[in-house]
């Protein structure tokens, strides 16, 4: 199945892309997708925040087909 993945701010710059569509297995935990991404790109990134369909999720959250997944650094608004 496919999920769309978005990156923001410093992570977007580090990734060199704002989004991508990634093929994974149904039910993959979001933390495992994240590991896959940083290993493929060979990057290090601490304190990543994770969201699915525009809501924060825990690292064990299981992904479904068509999910909009987002990874980003700690937020600094306001």
């Amino acid at each position: 199945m496919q999920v769309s993945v978005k990156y923001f701010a410093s992570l977007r710059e580090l990734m060199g892309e704002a989004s991508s569509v990634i093929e994974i297995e149904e039910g993959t935990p979001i933390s495992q997708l994240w590991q896959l991404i940083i290993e493929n790109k060979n990057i290090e990134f601490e304190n990543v925040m994770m969201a699915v369909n525009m809501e924060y999720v825990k690292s064990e959250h299981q992904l479904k087909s068509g999910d909009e997944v987002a990874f980003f650094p700690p937020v600094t608004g306001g």
Partner: protein
Amino acid sequence: MLIEIRKKPFNAYQEIQAYLENLDLAGQYGATASFVGSMRDFNEDKKVTYMTLEHYPGMTEKHLETIAKEAIEKWQLLDVLILHRVGKVKISEDIVLVATWSAHRKEAFESCRMIMEQLKSGAPFWKKEETNSGSQWVEKNTPGY
């Protein structure tokens, strides 16, 4: 309730005034607390020339709406206004405005501050500063309590 992400500069007090004129709350609210965050020309001893604010369109609005609705319920607020800038922000421009209306001051003060803290800790915004030693992403906020 109004929550807006603004790409262009806004004047916080004109915004509160304009919003208030369209509300039908005259005589109901005794207390309005508001907070305005503005662009400083320094951060941790570095001179800042401008800032770029990024957000996550869709999620940012949704997250702010959740914060506002929880505050309205928790403190029985009469209304909430949240505006936040994105894009290129110049020195002294307003970045964020939070205003809360309630019958009594305790609820207005506490809800305004709590909304700001929740916005800062959870709403997907990211600041990149242009300073005299190059550009850099802001890594964390100053503590609010």
